[in-house]
C-alpha cells in the first residue's frame, strides 16, 4: 500500500494523533449514521480541495494562499450542502450547523497547506483519501462507543425492510445515558485518546 495513503489512517490519524477537526468530530458523534455522513462530506471536500490546491499551487501567490485555500474549501462545502439538502434531507437536518462548519475544519485547511501545496496531484489525492478515511474511521469509532453505551443501538442507513437500527440486547434496556449527552462525548474521546497513547507508548516500550 502507498505510504501517502496509509499514513492518515493510523499513524497520523487526524482525530486521535493530530487532534485536528475535533469540533465536528464531537458534535455529530451521537449516532453512527451521522458520523458516516459527516465523514463522507469531509472526504469529498478534502479530496476536492487537495486536487484544486495541488493543481493551482504554482499560480497562487504565497501571500494570499490561505484566503485562496479557504475560498476553494468553502466552494466544495457549498456543493456538499446543496447535494446533501437535496438527496439526504434527514441527514442534513441531523448535522445542522456542522455542515457549513466543515469549512473551518482545520484538518482540511491543514492538509491543503501542509501537503497539497507542496506535492504532486497523485500524492495529494492519496493523501486526501487517506486522511479523509482516517477522519471518518476516528469519528465512527467515537460514535460507536457513544451510541452503543449511551443508547444501546447502532443506527445505520435504512435499506428496505431493515430500518437501520441494530439494538444491542442488555444495553438497550439500561443504557448509560451520559454517553449520549455532550459530556459523554468529551469523556469518550478522552479515554480513546488515552488508549491510543497507551498503545503507542507500549509499542515504543515506554509504558
Amino acid at each position, binding site marked *: 500500500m502507498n505510504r501517502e495513503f496509509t499514513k492518515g489512517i493510523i499513524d497520523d490519524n487526524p482525530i486521535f494523533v493530530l*487532534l*485536528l477537526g*475535533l*469540533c*465536528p468530530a*464531537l*458534535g455529530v458523534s451521537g449516532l453512527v449514521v451521522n458520523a458516516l455522513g459527516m465523514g463522507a462530506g469531509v472526504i469529498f471536500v478534502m479530496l476536492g480541495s487537495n486536487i484544486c490546491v495541488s493543481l493551482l499551487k504554482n499560480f497562487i501567490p504565497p501571500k494570499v494562499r*490561505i*484566503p485562496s485555500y*479557504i*475560498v476553494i474549501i*468553502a*466552494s466544495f*462545502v*457549498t456543493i456538499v*450542502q*446543496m447535494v446533501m439538502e437535496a438527496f439526504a434531507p434527514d441527514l442534513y437536518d441531523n448535522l445542522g*450547523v456542522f455542515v*457549513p*462548519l466543515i*469549512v*473551518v*475544519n*482545520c484538518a482540511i*485547511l491543514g492538509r491543503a497547506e501542509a501537503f497539497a501545496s507542496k506535492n504532486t496531484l497523485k500524492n495529494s489525492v492519496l493523501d486526501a483519501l487517506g486522511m479523509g478515511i482516517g477522519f471518518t474511521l476516528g469519528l465512527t469509532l467515537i460514535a460507536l462507543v457513544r451510541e452503543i453505551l449511551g443508547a444501546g443501538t447502532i443506527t445505520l442507513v435504512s435499506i428496505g425492510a431493515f430500518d437501520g437500527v441494530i439494538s444491542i440486547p442488555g444495553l438497550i434496556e439500561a443504557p448509560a445515558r*451520559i454517553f449520549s*449527552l*455532550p*459530556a*459523554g*462525548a*468529551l*469523556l469518550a*474521546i*478522552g*479515554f480513546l*485518546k*488515552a*488508549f491510543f*497513547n*497507551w498503545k503507542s*507508548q507500549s509499542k515504543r516500550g*515506554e*509504558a
Partner: protein
Amino acid sequence: MTYIGILITYIFISNFILTQFLGLCPFIGVSRNTESAVGMGFAVIFVMAIASVVTWLIQHYVLIPLSLEYLQTIAFILVIASLVQLVEMTIQKVSPPLYKALGIFLPLITTNCAVMGIALMNITSEYTLLESFTGGIAAGIGFLLAIVLMANIRERLEMKPVPKPFRGVPAAFISGGLMALAFMAFDRALLTNLLG
C-alpha cells in the same frame, strides 16, 4: 427572547464549548496556562461581537436582497477571515499594549468554528441586529468562562501524578467532560424560573 435571556442561554445553558463542541481546538490547544487562556478568551469575545454584527448586515443587506443565500458559507468565512485581519491591523496601530496581549491569538481565531458558528446561529435563530450582537458577546463570554476554568484545572493537574497515557490532552478532555456534566445543571428550566 430578551437580551438577558440570550446572555444566560449562551453563557450557561448552551455554552459553546461544553454543550455544542464549537471552539474545541483552542479550548484544548491554548488552555495550558491561565494567562494565555484569558488572552484568547477576550480576543474571541471581541471578534465574535464584531463578526456577529458584520455577518448579520451581510446576510440582510447583501445576500437576501440579491437572493444569494446559497453563498452564505463562502461569504461568511471570507468576511470573518478579512475581519480578523483588519482587527489585527487596527489593534496594532491603535493600541500596541492590547496588540501585545491579544495579537498572537488573533490569526488562530479565523479557523475557530465558534465564530462561524455564532454567525450562522444568529441567522437561523432569526435574531435582530442588536440580538445578534448580544449573542456574539454572550457566546464569547461563555467561551472565556470555559477556557479559563479549563486552564486552572490543567495547571493543577500538572502537579498531580496522572497516569502516563492520560497525561496532557486525554486528561484535558476528561476534565472537560466532567465540567460539561456540571454545566448540565443549567437548563431551560433555569431560564424560565429566572425570567418567568
